[in-house]
């Protein structure tokens, strides 16, 4: 099957399935010749609309690279990648996704509200409209009262919530998050996980969430993609057996622990792979 035909088939398939992200034999290498690094190797993956998918794997296995490829921040070396049935570039231009980086990446000279309105300012939305939009998104992450504050007046966890509110600005159907809570303490992290879960449940967003914490992945996800060490491959996609609505207490249930064990085993298998 040649490429255009394959492409047509994939687009068709993802449209049928309503897939948010389809990767097919996706490989990404950095650099050329001897010094080239293979970051991702033959990734085939389908992420359905409304899913909460965690990417988990040892550090350096290409989780960030995969997320960046979906966001059109990195170009695939070979294979196919579709976002909402479009090329990543078309999806980016269509403002199909919001991206939350590992660090909050707020602009220190802008107030919280003006950080959240930044993307809307860039697309030329009117002032009143974008202010209303920012308020809505800040309320959604529970920071409605902090609109007038500046980033340095907020804790790390609050800053990351602001960056989530900002990522919601375009009303994207897809939210890409790269270890957003990685730098935070356990207690703050629990709170934010619950918050994120409720946000996802309420909005019907598709979420792709990079983490290297097993409990975090199990708590949040409908699907857990376990990746092997470099070059990253998909070891296993584990579908969650937990109910859609989650509570922090559920992390003690046998079902939760069993799922955690499955993820851990898959991670170990991936480890042995290399």
């Amino acid at each position, binding site marked *: 099957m040649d490429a255009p035909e394959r492409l047509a088939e994939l687009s068709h398939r993802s449209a049928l399935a309503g897939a948010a992200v389809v990767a097919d034999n996706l490989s990404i290498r950095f650099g050329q010749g001897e010094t080239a690094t293979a970051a991702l190797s033959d990734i085939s993956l389908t992420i359905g609309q409304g899913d909460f998918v965690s990417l988990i794997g040892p550090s350096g296995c290409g989780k960030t690279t995969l997320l*960046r490829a979906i*966001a*059109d*921040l990195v170009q695939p070396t070979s294979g196919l990648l579709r976002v909402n049935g479009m090329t990543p570039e078309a999806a*980016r*231009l269509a*403002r199909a*996704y*919001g*991206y939350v*980086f*590992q*660090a909050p*990446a707020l*602009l*220190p*000279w*802008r*107030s919280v509200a003006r950080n959240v309105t*930044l*993307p809307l*300012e*860039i*697309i030329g939305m009117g002032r009143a409209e974008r202010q209303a939009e920012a308020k809505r998104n800040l309320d959604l992450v529970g920071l409605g009262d902090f609109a007038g*504050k*500046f980033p*340095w*007046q907020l804790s790390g966890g609050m800053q990351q919530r602001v960056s989530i509110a900002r990522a919601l600005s375009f009303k994207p159907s897809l939210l890409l998050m790269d270890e957003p809570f990685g730098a935070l303490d356990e207690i703050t992290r629990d709170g934010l996980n619950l918050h994120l879960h409720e946000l996802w449940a309420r909005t019907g967003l598709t979420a792709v969430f990079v983490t290297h914490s097993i409990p975090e992945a199990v708590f949040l996800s409908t699907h857990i993609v376990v990746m092997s060490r470099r070059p990253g491959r998909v070891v296993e996609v584990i579908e969650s057996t937990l109910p859609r609505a989650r509570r922090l207490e559920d992390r003690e249930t046998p079902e939760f622990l069993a799922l955690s064990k499955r993820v851990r085993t898959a991670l170990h298998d991936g480890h042995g792979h290399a």
Partner: protein
Amino acid sequence: MTQKILPIVTVLIAVLILWYAAAVWLNAPQAEALMDPDQPHGLWALAQACWSMDRPVLPAPDQIASALIDSVFGFPLSSPRNLLLQAGYTAATTVIGLIFGLIFGILLAIGIVHVRTLDRSVMPWVIASQTIPILAIAPMLVVALGSMGVTGLTPKAAIVAYLTFFPVTVGMVKGFRTPDPLQLDLMHTYSAGEMTVFAKLRWPAGMAFLFPSLKVAVALAVTGAIVAEMPTGAQVGLGARLLAGSYYGQTMMMWSALVMASLLALAGLLAVTLLERGVVLMRGGRL
């Protein structure tokens, strides 16, 4: 408040005491020659004579102050002998030169940050441009330009601009490059073009570097304007007064022009500081 003012006042008093002492030391030979040798006089009388000479080597601070007040209020503002009028000429040269230096410096920095070939080809020339001792050749340059028909404010402002664009370019190149890869990626996820990235990210990030550069530029601009006013034939400005004072041995005139020049530089720095405060205020207390 007292804690801030006390050290300043202490230093000021120390400087004044040293100044009066230095005036006695430097003026004594001439003062002694002027005094009646037959009449016995004490040290205090000598000191007083040193502090009230018409053409002292070093005038006493109170003499400079009264000369300054006299040159400002003693003549109508339209008189060329009014020092405020002369300071106005220098200020005009400084401000116009500074504005052009600023615009040119910023445009150059924008080019260097955005065009790789400019970074390689122009940056070395920017640095080389400052190895020319422009202050030393400024009077020559003004005369040369004058013989080509370029007279008045233009050649002087050009020298000021030449001196001031450098700190602005160096500072702004650094400032425009402060946004980190994460912030640039963020803008890419918004599909923002280079212009937008500049307006929303590079320019505001560069602000923190603009004000230090501007302060250096202001000090350079005042010096440049005064030196550019010095060549023979120059009629106006504090530089011309400084030269005339030195030519005719009018130390008092020189010193008042000098003090006026410092006040001008001070006013410029104050203006930049106020501007900076305004921006900081708009940014919630930090730059």
